[in-house]
């Protein structure tokens, strides 16, 4: 029998029972739709996280203090004083892949302006800190090199700090706030950046010259961290190695000796986040594919019942000349058509669903062609796998008994 006749027979048999065909397909539709939606949403969320991390700069490289042990006592990283201003100078002088570097020193305390106060962190850096961290000045100006040299008591505030300290809406620029006992003159307000991927408010920040924080607030000689920018995203890994080399040289570490600092890049962060969202996507898709299996079993169930119900029809087809193989292929075709048509409807539903969900969550809309293609293959496989047994059963019927079946 040729394929065209076979498809015609299977199609006619299905169309005779539209409601049943549709209900049978429902399982597959739901299964495929949920797999597509889950995979698409997973990709959307990782794209959204990627975008957010990129907005903080994927070329960001951080040198941090390392936990250290002294005589068996882990003294943590907070008390480690290994990072110095000279390290920053050395990086700037020697590194080929680094465009900018800034020391970072942070101090927490209460910010006071008139009757308002707000718990804040002052982050001290040099003039390139804002560029490295991808902040922009909304109004006012950034502090200058002379300000850094003079440890000037000036600062820029983030939007959240400005809103809380100046709740009546006056312009913060030019105002003076107190950090502890030290008065700071606000010379600029930072443009709002919103929350980062960890849910931290990136506008809850005060930026001042690092010299001011180091000498006037904390009275220390070391620095907490170094933030640097790689020339570009592409050379970030080289920049990372380069910085590590310079730092080891700077700290006079011998070969084989552990680093007394840590170098981290935003790209590593990105990788980590991607592995988390990737895992979640796989997990959700796995759960969704359970419904796909249930849908497949639904097809098998209906096809199985159908074979019994259509025994007489099978007997008739055999009596007018259908070979066993024809009957087998007809039932197999029916289940494949059911699962493929169900799959296509499911894909459409899944795409609509993921579009709606990513629109509602404000995520970028991603269509996973792999997921769509794979769903199609899975559908066909489901049809064959779950259709085989009932089809086999139908083909094995004896025409005489099948014709007499009531």
């Amino acid at each position, binding site marked *: 029998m040729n394929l065209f*006749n076979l498809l015609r027979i299977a199609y006619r048999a299905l169309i005779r029972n539209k409601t049943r065909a549709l209900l049978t397909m429902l399982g597959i539709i739901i299964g495929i739709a949920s797999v597509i939606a889950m995979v698409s949403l997973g990709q959307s969320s990782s794209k959204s996280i990627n975008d957010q991390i990129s907005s903080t700069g994927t070329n960001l490289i951080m040198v941090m203090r390392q936990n250290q042990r002294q005589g068996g006592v882990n003294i943590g990283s907070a008390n480690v004083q290994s990072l110095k201003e000279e390290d920053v100078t050395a990086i700037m002088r020697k590194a080929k892949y680094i465009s900018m570097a800034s020391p970072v020193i942070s101090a927490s305390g209460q910010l006071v302006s008139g009757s308002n106060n707000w718990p804040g962190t002052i982050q001290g850096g040099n003039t390139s800190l804002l560029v490295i961290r991808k902040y922009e000045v909304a109004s006012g100006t950034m502090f200058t090199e002379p300000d850094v040299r003079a440890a000037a008591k000036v600062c820029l505030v983030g939007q959240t700090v400005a809103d809380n300290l100046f709740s009546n809406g006056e312009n913060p620029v030019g105002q003076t706030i107190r950090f502890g006992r030290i008065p700071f003159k606000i010379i600029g307000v930072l443009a709002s950046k919103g929350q980062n991927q960890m849910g931290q408010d990136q506008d809850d920040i005060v930026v001042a010259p690092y010299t001011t924080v180091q000498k006037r607030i904390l009275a220390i000689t070391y620095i907490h961290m170094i933030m640097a920018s790689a020339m570009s995203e592409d050379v970030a890994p080289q920049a990372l190695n380069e910085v590590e080399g310079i730092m080891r040289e700077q700290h006079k570490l011998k070969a084989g000796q552990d680093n007394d600092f840590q170098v981290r890049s935003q790209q590593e962060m990105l990788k980590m986040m991607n592995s988390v969202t990737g895992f979640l996507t796989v997990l959700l898709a796995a759960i969704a594919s359970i419904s796909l299996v249930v849908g497949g079993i639904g097809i098998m169930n209906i096809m199985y019942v159908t074979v019994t119900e259509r025994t007489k029809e099978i007997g*008739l087809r*055999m*009596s007018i000349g259908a070979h066993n193989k024809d009957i087998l292929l007809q039932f197999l075709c029916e289940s494949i058509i059911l699962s493929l048509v169900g799959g296509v409807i499911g894909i459409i539903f899944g795409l609509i669903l993921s579009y709606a969900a990513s629109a509602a969550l404000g995520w970028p809309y991603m269509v996973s062609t792999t997921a769509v293609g794979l769903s199609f293959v899975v559908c066909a496989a489901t049809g064959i796998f779950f259709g085989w047994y009932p089809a086999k059963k139908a083909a094995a019927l004896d025409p005489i008994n099948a014709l007499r079946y009531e």
Partner: protein
Amino acid sequence: MNRIIEIQELRRTFQVGSEQVHALKGISFFINEGEFVSIMGTSGSGKSTLLNILGCLDRPTSGEYFIDGTAASKRTKDELSTLRNRKIGFVFQSYNLLARTSALENVELPLLYNSAIPSKERRERALHALEQVGLQDRLHHMPNQLSGGQQQRVAIARALVNDPVILLADEATGNLDTRTSYEIMSLFQKLNAEGKTIAFVTHEPDIAIFTSRTVQLRDGHIVRDAPVTPKAAAESLAALPVDVDF
């Protein structure tokens, strides 16, 4: 004359539990082209078994069976299927039409299992077969929109569509009232007059009178095989009182 059907010493034995049941105990006969044979017998006489073998649905335990000159007694299942598709037209007691399928599509069905026939020819032959049974104005009716007699006509058209060497009717009037039975028998007589060979299995003597030869089976043996002068079904139909249906 062409021998359409020839059987020699045909035996069929069934194994029922530990017992052997001999349904056919060595029967021989032949049917020539253009004959209208009724195969009669009570239930248990072996007529259904004989019909199954004649219809290539079953294989004899021993003996020979030739249909249209082809030996059919030792064929594989698939070869038997092809024989049924090309040589035999079945008409069943309960019509066995596919539900929710138009008359035309029902009639086309046997040709779908013959890949040598293109779809245009399939359609033409189905139309022709429906014309032969007088249903040319019911092509797109579903079985549930047709009366019993009309459904049986569709079934007869389906049996005719592959141009079989023999029509095998199994109690084809068993579900019909007298008037409709006579109409169907009249149709069979018309087809026979046009040259179709027909074997008609029945247990009703008043249906067998419309055939030209009666083969009587009892307990697996042929007890009578005699030509009869067929009564014209059209006459019987005309003789029926008008209110017989009511």
